[in-house]
């Protein structure tokens, strides 16, 4: 973590919240870049840059949840810490289901936010280290059973468990078990991470 320069990307439409976050992160020596909208962040997004995203869940135009969805579609693995207002719990739960690291309610204790950010940076670093070891990825893929390989292929094509179960003529529960085993064997922290590993491995072949 110390070796890789990683950046905290803050996206919030509220000027005051955004600039106060910039000052706070600067005060603890973290490199920060701020964006006033999801679109502005997307326009500047570079998948190769290490770091994490601190993302306001409610924003006019593209919301935080929509940005998360877009990043997932792009198989981006940048970890996301959501910041939410009161009464945004259902949205936060949805964000968690889609792979967010955590969410934190406004106003927040600085240490809590910094802890989440550090956690996200570690995740990002691990993911990137994992990505960097193509041989290791291929080796791990070698440990998968033929059925697990099939499930991996279908999962990374974006198919839902239900569809995979139908395609393979097995129960949905069986697919879920295979899928969990795949994630575990591959050391993937999220679906996006898994996809990135597969892409990486295919590139290497």
């Amino acid at each position: 973590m110390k070796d890789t320069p990683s950046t905290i990307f803050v996206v919030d439409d509220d000027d005051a919240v955004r600039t106060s976050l910039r000052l706070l992160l600067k005060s603890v020596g973290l490199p920060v870049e701020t964006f006033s909208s999801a679109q502005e962040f997307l326009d500047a997004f570079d998948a190769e840059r290490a770091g994490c995203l601190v993302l306001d869940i409610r924003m006019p135009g593209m919301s935080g949840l929509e940005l998360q969805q877009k990043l997932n579609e792009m198989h981006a693995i940048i970890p996301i810490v959501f910041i939410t207002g009161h009464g945004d719990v259902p949205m936060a739960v949805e964000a968690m289901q889609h792979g967010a690291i955590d969410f934190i309610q406004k106003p927040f204790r600085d240490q809590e936010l910094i802890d989440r950010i550090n956690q996200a940076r570690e995740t990002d670093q691990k993911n990137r280290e994992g990505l960097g070891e193509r041989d290791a990825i291929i080796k791990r893929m070698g440990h998968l059973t033929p059925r697990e390989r099939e499930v991996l292929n279908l999962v990374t094509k974006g198919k839902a468990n239900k569809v995979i179960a139908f395609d393979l003529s097995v129960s949905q529960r069986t697919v879920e078990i295979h899928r969990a085993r795949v994630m575990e064997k591959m050391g993937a922290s999220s679906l996006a991470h898994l996809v990135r590993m597969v892409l990486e491995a295919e590139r290497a072949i």
Partner: protein
Amino acid sequence: MTNQLVPPRLTATQDLEALLDAAVDAIIVIDHSSHILTFNHAAERLFGYAQEQVLGQDISMLMPAPYKAAHAGYVDAYLNTGHARIIGIGREISARRRDGSVFPAALSVGKIGDANPPRFVGFIHDISARKAAEESLRQSESLLRNAQSIAQLGNYEYVYPDGVISWSDEMYHLLGLPKASGPLHIKELGQRFVHADDTAHFDRICTHAYTTFDRFDFEFRIHRYDGAVRYIHSQGTVHPHPAGAHVTGTLHDITDRKLAEDELRIGQERLTHVARLSTMGEMAAGLAHEINQPLTAIATYAQAAVRLMDSPDGADPVDLRDALLQIVAQSLRAGEVIRRLRGFVKTRAANSERLEINRLIEDIRILAGSDARVNDIRLILDLDPRAPGVAGDPIQLQQVLLNLIRNAIDATCECPGALRELTVTTRPLGDGVEVAVIDHAGGIPESVAQHLFNPFFTTKETGTGLGLAISRSIITAHRGKLGYRPTPGGGTSFFFTLPQLVGV
């Protein structure tokens, strides 16, 4: 010459007969035992008898029953005592025609010279018409008195500054004065009865009316004689008079109406307040967000400042100063939201003041904008700088606007795929301004449209169904109209009009 002028005796008799025949009044002569001696033409016409039928008959034949018996007694009494009950005085009597009908008559009686036995002459004048007119007048006065009493409306007429010409009975009743006290001079009325808080108003209007001879029409309170406070509506006209001014007018006790109006007004204000609270409740998420944002910034700036100060390199004073200034600004921002909210939800009486409609809309940008933002909707203000000034209650008008915006937000949220944008526009009309809230939420279904303004009709799970009904009553009270129309591209424009402020 002189001899020729002295009329002969025969001529005198002829003159007398001519006089009797020409007289308009009935003339009847009777002797001491009440027998008719003379009955002129007018008497024949009046009573329906020919002279021959009555000569020598008793005079009582011309009288209805109760007088008949008494008459002989009167004559005897006079003859015995010399005490005249009627002679030289005249009185009103009832007389009887040949056909039996009775009529009122004025009778004057004279004793003829020194005739012995005495003879009397009576002059009888039919006063039916006068009596009928009097009766009719009495009846209409009674009707008027009753009507005034029922209406609690008194009328008066006086010359200022001289004094009162007439006062109707109801005037006493209105003031609680005993009738025996007599009418009051206007100055006394003003000093003794008009409520202390209204005397300046009363004096100003009276002085203006008496000097310009203008009509007047105003209200004031009085302390009635019994101490009760009553509301009086005073109307009248003033005309020039040699002594000053001739004033004719009415006082109308409108206390009951006033109290009912007050009750109604208070009820409406309460209802309006409840609707306002309800709108605020619906906007709570947005408002919480709007306060939470500055709180978040304040907490974050303060924590950053502490970390900067604790850092081994020491804090950059520029950063610290900036953080502190931001904390101040964000505190004020949160305070401003709360101030507006408090102003909006407190109980208050309606009042009317001069307003710039565009500023009024700008002022609710925070409240409405935060509600829109948390629902991921863009609020656009498109305000025409030519919008004229209006008169009204700012809080009530903002309430209407927030209610329309709130509805538009709900409609947009319930319409998947709708353009998430609301526009508030103002535009000048011929004689006022139109304010519209325009959404793109697909329009209003027919089943909803027909109940839209009914109280307690709602399409929302937690709605009261009062918003639009109260909004419309507020706008109507401002002499405007509230309605809606579909917009091209599948949306709705809810609009209201307000008349231009006159005299500006």
